């Protein structure tokens, strides 16, 4: 059992848990994820590691309420425990002194990008970060990302905070500008990563994305998370989750993410009605 040491409600429907998992904290690296299972009946779901503290023995996860499992997770408080917390899984993000790295975070992926931006900066890269959300109420960890970046650009789709627009706009401006950009890391909803990759492709800048297909075990035994990169089938859980954004078959990823839409709806409706009865 893995105790929740701290709970923070970052913005509506997005929560942060610090979970006691000392062995995982000791090994965690930027870009890796954990697979969690709330209880006996729960699903196994992957969540990216947003931080770790080896002294405290804790791993930080940030998640958004989407379906049954994340809604159930959001009912837990500090002091409650999660039954299973498996990791660190996936290959860590490749960190090297590239020169100037642009880190782009869409939505709640700002949590994932902070450890990566920090590691890139510690390796001697100049880090320019871009974070975007739909509106002001969904912006979080702005200070955290600023503290690990040389420059931070914040966008909101509706202009209710900072610069109005999508993250791809400042991204394009940077690529068109005078400064040479050596690498782009783009993490967020699949469609956002696709558009970031499309934006950088004409400029020939290597763009790493972190794919988020459906997973079950997370250790390479089932093939549920298979994606197509450069025409070759890969398992996102063991060959990724980082891949070259210009090589990813995005349509296949979107399609495979929809496999259980009906079941997810049915499960959530049933859970909701049971939950309403109880509360």
């Amino acid at each position, binding site marked *: 059992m893995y105790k929740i040491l701290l709970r923070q409600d970052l913005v509506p429907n997005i929560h942060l848990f610090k979970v006691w998992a000392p062995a995982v904290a000791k090994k965690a690296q930027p870009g890796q994820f954990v697979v969690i299972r709330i209880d006996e009946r729960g699903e196994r779901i992957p969540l990216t590691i947003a931080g770790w503290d080896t002294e405290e023995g804790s791993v930080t996860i940030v998640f958004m309420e989407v379906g049954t499992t994340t809604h159930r997770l959001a009912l837990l408080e500090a002091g409650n425990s999660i039954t299973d917390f498996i990791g660190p899984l996936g290959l860590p993000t490749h960190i090297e002194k590239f020169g100037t790295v642009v880190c782009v975070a869409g939505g709640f992926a700002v949590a994932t990008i902070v450890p990566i931006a920090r590691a890139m900066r510690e390796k001697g890269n100049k880090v320019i970060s871009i974070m975007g959300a739909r509106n002001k109420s969904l912006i979080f960890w702005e200070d955290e990302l600023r503290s690990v970046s040389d420059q931070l650009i914040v966008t909101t789709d509706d202009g209710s905070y900072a610069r109005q627009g999508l993250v791809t706009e400042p991204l394009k401006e940077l690529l068109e500008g005078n400064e040479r950009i050596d690498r782009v890391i783009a993490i967020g909803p699949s469609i956002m990563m696709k558009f970031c990759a499309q934006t950088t492709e004409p400029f020939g800048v290597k763009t790493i994305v972190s794919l988020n297909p459906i997973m*079950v075990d997370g250790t390479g035994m089932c093939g549920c998370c298979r994606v197509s990169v450069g025409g070759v089938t890969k398992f996102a859980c063991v060959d990724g989750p980082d891949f070259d954004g210009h090589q990813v078959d995005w349509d296949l990823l979107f399609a495979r993410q929809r496999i259980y839409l009906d079941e997810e709806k049915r499960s959530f409706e049933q859970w909701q009605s049971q939950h309403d009865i109880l509360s």
Partner: protein
Amino acid sequence: MPKLNLNREPMPRQDPKLRSKNFNEVALGYSAEQAEAEASRCILCPRHSCIDGCPVEVDIPDFIKAIGDGDMPEAVRILKSKNSLPGICGRVCPQETQCEATCSLAKKGAPIAIGRLERYVADWERANMESTNSPIIQPTPSGKRVAVVGSGPAGLTAAADLAKLGHSATIFEALHTAGGVLIYGIPEFRLPKDIVQAEVDYVTSLGVKVELDSVIGKLVTIDELLNNGYDAVFLGTGAGLPMFMGIPGENLNGIYSANEFLTRVNLMKAYQFPAYNTPVKVGKRVAVIGGGNVAMDSARCALRLGAEEVYIVYRRSEVEMPARREEVENAKEEGIQFKLLTVPKRFLGNDQNWVVGMECYEMELGEPDESGRRRPIVKEGSEFIIDVDVVIVALGTTPNPLIAQTTGGLETTKQGTVVADEETGKAAKPKVWAGGDIVTGAATVISAMGAAKLAAADIDRYLRE
């Protein structure tokens, strides 16, 4: 010369129509009367060639005689002195190619139903004996610690034997439950999970510790284990990497590896969705590609989930199918259709990326290949389409490369298996042993157990030097 009784007691089974709609055990087990009747058929021949057929050398005639004598506790003691997982082996061992094939009565067409008797003894123990929390053997602790990677048949057996020899054994399991393929692969209706748990509980009652959620190679490496207090490591990580065909359309929605399908259904209990939150696709027309036990298991699960038509699609003919005869018969009785001498060429999908059909070749059999079975040859121009909405690829598995990738000094083959001595399980890397599917590629529960017993004995020798 006593008269030979060639009437094998049949195994009572659930009616096929009923059982194809539930996940309860198909084989119901012998009654006491049946067990005594079958046990009394054994002529207690001096050759006892049955033992030669057993990978773990169970004292078969002795435990059978104990059943006949009505001394069940003695039957339990004899059986468990060699086999720590009898409830499992009695259900899933292919006895027909092992002990029952070498039984003296085999040539008369009526070998003793050793497997069914083994199951009877194991089930009797569970129902009748007090919990086995205080093991009969209380060995002197050696002070040595062994890390066992994997809690499948090999790991459980190695850990149990090492504990009985006085060593401290800790099993590291990647999944959230122990049992390995026993828990994620073999379905509930062939191997109930409470039996697997009972056998795991027996192993832990010997003092073995089990660390779940521990992916060795990620959470901690083999070298870290050896540098942090473990005197030896046994690798029992199995063959859990699924093989795909590499044909067009294989990533369409609705196409599963058997591992994924079975893990959702068995480990995550998707057959109880949405009470259990993990879903699985229930197709109307399901095709399972393959002819082994995993293919039979997948097909029979798909049927029970509610598929209207389930096909086994296999490239050779029935006689070459590697699945247990018994499971092929069970599948046929349940209404699973066999499309033999058939191989998929490509999968057809709709504009939403869902599989809707499978284009197949007809095959014919030529000369035998390396496996000794007649080679399947494509009949050019024979393409035809089968309508399907779910496909399960059950063509076999190879070892997960994670251990090899994160462990220096381990010798591996092109197939990804770890090289280990056949008699001792010793691997090239110092202080490391290996056994089961990680060494042989996908094989059986009992062969994994046999290899684990040899390795545990060799580890014991090494630790006492």
